[in-house]
């Protein structure tokens, strides 16, 4: 299970950041606008060969199939995971613990996904996520096709 993003739907409301902060104290997802035309949330990608877990010297970050887990008790806060993440998705400010999405293992659905009013965040495996994205893309094509037929008939 992972969190996927449907960029077509993200409306830059940052409700996911607020939901994440409510649960963890600090938000582990960050949304920024790109050229005023799109907005992109960034959080841990849960990489297959996760660099953060490969460099973690204390075993706090662990690779478990499609998820990268984090155990705060083992963390020394050395900060190597922060500079090893290719996506800049791991944070460590001097006063806090490493901040990285752990997919909220104690919850059925992560609060960021539940909160997203545009349903831009999808929680599932990659097959479930691609099915949702395909269905939405097909529906957009169908809509624009219907609209163009409507215009032709005037």
């Amino acid at each position, binding site marked *: 299970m992972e969190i996927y993003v449907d960029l077509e739907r993200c409306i830059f409301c940052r409700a996911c950041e607020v939901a994440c902060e409510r649960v963890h104290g600090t938000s582990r997802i960050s949304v920024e606008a*790109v050229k005023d035309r799109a907005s992109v949330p960034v959080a841990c990608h849960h990489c297959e060969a996760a660099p953060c877990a*490969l*460099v973690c010297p204390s075993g706090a970050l662990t690779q478990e199939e499609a998820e990268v887990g984090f155990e705060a008790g083992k963390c020394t*806060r050395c900060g190597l995971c922060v500079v090893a993440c290719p996506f*800049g998705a791991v944070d460590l400010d001097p006063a806090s613990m490493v901040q990285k999405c752990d997919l909220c293992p104690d919850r059925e659905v992560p609060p960021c996904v539940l909160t997203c009013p545009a349903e831009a965040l999808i929680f599932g495996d990659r097959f479930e996520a691609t099915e949702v994205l395909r269905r939405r893309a097909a529906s957009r094509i169908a809509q624009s096709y219907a609209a163009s037929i409507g215009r032709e008939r005037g």
Partner: protein
Amino acid sequence: MKGTEEGLLRILAVDEDECIGCRACSNLWPEISAAVGLSDRGAKRTIRFPRSIEEFEARIAEGLVEACPTGAISFGLADELPGEESFALTFEMVRCRICGRPFATKKEMEYIRDRLPEPVQARGSAASWMDLCTGCRQDVGRNAAARGLIVARSWPRR
């Protein structure tokens, strides 16, 4: 002053070749953060280590040795304090290729490079993501992800 049961002092030593200038020792516990001072100035990181402090009891000495990712920290025993109270190691930092901000020590990046398979090192942006600070890595990823969407949304309105 605390020390071993025999009244000896624990004296800290750091192997300069092994230390990569990460933040494990300075971030481990609040009482250590006060003693091990890490400061980033310009493109240099300096870590100042105490030779011996009151708080170097067994628990903290063991913790420091265990936390160090490269095994650079060790403790020796001595009757009295050495002449110098502290010593400092200085590390050259890598600047982000986009914004110029120093974001990690050269030795940290070497440590990371040694542990990653080659395809992972090359993944990401056109230049290697390893040359960029975390903020610029996010920006590069965002721009790449949004590229198609921005083109689609830039068509003139009908």
